[in-house]
């Protein structure tokens, strides 16, 4: 039973990174490309961002329903970065919508644009910081301690900083890959392809630095990865995919490119999962919260499973329809909305 929940949670995280991440990344790409991509970006994310955003809500709901202690541990000790994430989500969502829907186009759009871009950068960074704090294991077992020890140091350190950068670059890279497919003229295609390359190289470098910094903190990620068959498989697959991905980018095969980028991201998340499972949050002192010791009572779990299965049977066809309408047929593109 619990395995199904963990699986859906993993899928929700993956889809949030792929879809929601690409939406945030679009703002980061805008920062990089400036005015050039702005129309493509607006049109590409306007119809889908709300739906993409709900994967995060699903993950939160699964956590507080199925693993209440995991949820409350995160919200107590990582209050500050999570709050910043929330502020980022609010600013980005509203600034984007205000920009897109303002009936008169004048100077005010500039301000929305600035807010949209900055919050698109800030949110993934602090999501990454949160992720780093979960892995690092500096979260204390109780609130006895100074404010700094309990509420700051678990998430504010070099390791979480590098994971923050990594997630930001990942989102930016996903967005550029995704936007390549949305580009309708040569020039914007070139822009996005170039951005994608730059993000990719930086992403690899930042991934390496996560591993290196982990050594400083005694996390031994290299060792953990090499001990898990699943993790080795993920790393291998992700590497094999790299040349295929770039061939497809150059040939402008939109669907294949996106699929391969999706596989790579799935590999990253599955690899993380492989070294982490069954721990959900590492706690300093070793009393980690695991899938087993933090799950809700059986009746709750079985009802949650029912809800997830029914939900997925309803949602997936609906999602497929949404993407079919907006992503795979390009008729009616001249209409603004």
């Amino acid at each position, binding site marked *: 039973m619990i395995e199904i929940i963990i699986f859906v949670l993993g899928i929700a995280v993956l889809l949030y990174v792929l879809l929601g991440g690409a939406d945030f990344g679009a703002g980061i790409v805008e920062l990089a490309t400036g005015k050039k991509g702005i129309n493509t970006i607006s049109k590409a994310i*306007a*119809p889908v961002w*709300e*739906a993409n*955003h*709900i994967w*995060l*809500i*699903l993950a*939160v*709901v699964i956590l*507080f*329903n*199925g693993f*209440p*202690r995991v*949820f*409350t541990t*995160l*919200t*107590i000790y990582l*209050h500050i970065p*999570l*709050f910043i994430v*929330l*502020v980022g*989500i*609010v600013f980005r*969502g*509203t600034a*984007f*919508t*205000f920009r*897109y*829907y303002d*009936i*008169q186009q004048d100077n005010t759009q500039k301000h929305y644009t600035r807010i949209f871009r900055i919050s698109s950068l800030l949110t993934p960074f602090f999501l990454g910081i949160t992720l780093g704090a979960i892995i690092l294991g500096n979260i204390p077992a109780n609130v006895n301690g100074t*404010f700094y020890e309990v509420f700051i140091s678990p998430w504010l350190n070099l390791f979480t900083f590098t994971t923050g950068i990594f997630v930001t670059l990942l989102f930016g890279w996903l967005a550029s890959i995704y936007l390549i497919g949305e580009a309708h003229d040569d020039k914007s295609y070139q822009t996005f392809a170039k951005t994608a390359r730059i993000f990719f190289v930086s992403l690899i470098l930042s991934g390496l630095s996560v591993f290196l910094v982990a050594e400083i903190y005694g996390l031994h990620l290299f060792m953990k990865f090499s001990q898990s068959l699943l993790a080795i498989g993920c790393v291998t697959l992700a590497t094999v995919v790299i040349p295929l991905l770039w061939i497809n980018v150059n040939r402008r095969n939109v669907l294949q490119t996106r699929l391969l980028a999706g596989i790579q991201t799935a590999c990253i998340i599955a690899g993380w999962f492989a070294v982490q499972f069954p721990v959900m949050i590492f706690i300093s002192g070793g009393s980690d919260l695991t899938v087993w010791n933090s799950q*809700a*009572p059986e*009746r*709750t779990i079985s009802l*949650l499973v029912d*809800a*997830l299965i*029914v*939900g997925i049977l*309803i*949602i997936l066809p*609906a*999602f497929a*329809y*949404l993407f079919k*309408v*907006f992503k795979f*047929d390009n008729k*009616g593109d001249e*209409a*603004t*909305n």
Partner: protein
Amino acid sequence: MDDFLAARLQMTVSFVFHIVYACIGMTMPWLMFVAEWKWIKTGQQVYLDLAKAWARGVAIFFAVGAVSGTVLSFELGLLWPNFMEHAGAIIGMPFSWEGTAFFLEAIALGVFLYGRNRVSNRMHLISGLVVGIAGVISGIFVVAANAWMNSPSGFDWINGQANNIDPMKAMFNKAWFQQALHMTIAAFASTCFAVAGIHAYMLLRHKDNDFHRKAIRIALSFGIVAAILQPLSGDLSAKNVAILQPAKLAAMESLFKTSEPASLVIGGIPNVKEEKVEYGLHIPKLLSFLAHGDFNAEVQGLDKTKKEDWPPVPIVHFAFQIMVLMGLLMMGTGILFLIFKIKWKENLDRKWWLIWLVGLTPVGFIAVEAGWIVTEVGRQPWIIYGIMKTRDAVTPMPGIQYPFYVITLIYILLTIFVFWLMKRQILAIQTNYQDILSHD
């Protein structure tokens, strides 16, 4: 500022903000659906214009609703972790079902707002209906979770731990039906009166404009029904509260002493120290009837509750009076409308009627906010009624006033922006809407 106070205020600000967008998100899809359906049926361009004009505004409201809802789902843990640690497993279920409803809503919304030129008219119309249905369903699920806080069930509380958890029983608690019914009607009443009021204002400035006249008609056709039903549903709620949360009812009515029979107090200022109401209008026996359906029934007063467990009486009392006043105003308007409809039709185009509608623009939302204050403040000091005190649920993190300031500032700014954008939208659409919409 005290951390506990800051946490409560932050929760309050977040809900007071979100609920407005939630009401609009539940109701506007239905109005757009009707406009579009009429367009398909009659072929009159004005209905299509209306559906398009509304859609432009609704997109903005939905975005704000979605992000403020996300804030709430995190705040449950950020502010009340000790509550969520116990409640998560018990009432997470309606939230997990709500997740499905949100997905459907967001997906259908994408098709409805952006897919007009990509899907058939029929599919477009259906997507509008799905948004409306999913919105109402998600509202019902959250309110069921809230009703559980008022009427906790589906678990045994032993030594500060929940045992024998049954989420089904928890969701279908004794308060869920009354609250969900009352809330759903409230969403329609508040949004429809606001929409009617805005279009009435435009109609006053541009006489004989068919666009605004049709808008008023559609909005009122829902709004009137809701306004007439709402006090009836409120009566059901009050009877339920009288049984489940006697202290809340006593606070609503400022009934300090248990009485048999009890009189209804209208208006008045509760004096908590001396335990009496000053300047109120007392109607003998009416409270007994309203609370228990019997003019001579005993109604429990605050004296049966330890003073330290009293909710803040004046706040609950005033909020309740405001809600009821607004409700009666709207109901009266609804009945007047029906009378005019049957007999003196010409009145519906008179200036005074339109001015009246303009005046009623905010009343539904005022009632919604007041009603939630009755419900939430009236439950204090409990976060789970009779089980857990709000004070014991608050986060151990100090310095909560800072996130409270930030959230408050952001929501004030967003409110200003949304008003400003709507004003731009409405002004632009009323002067040259055909021009703008033909580009859509």
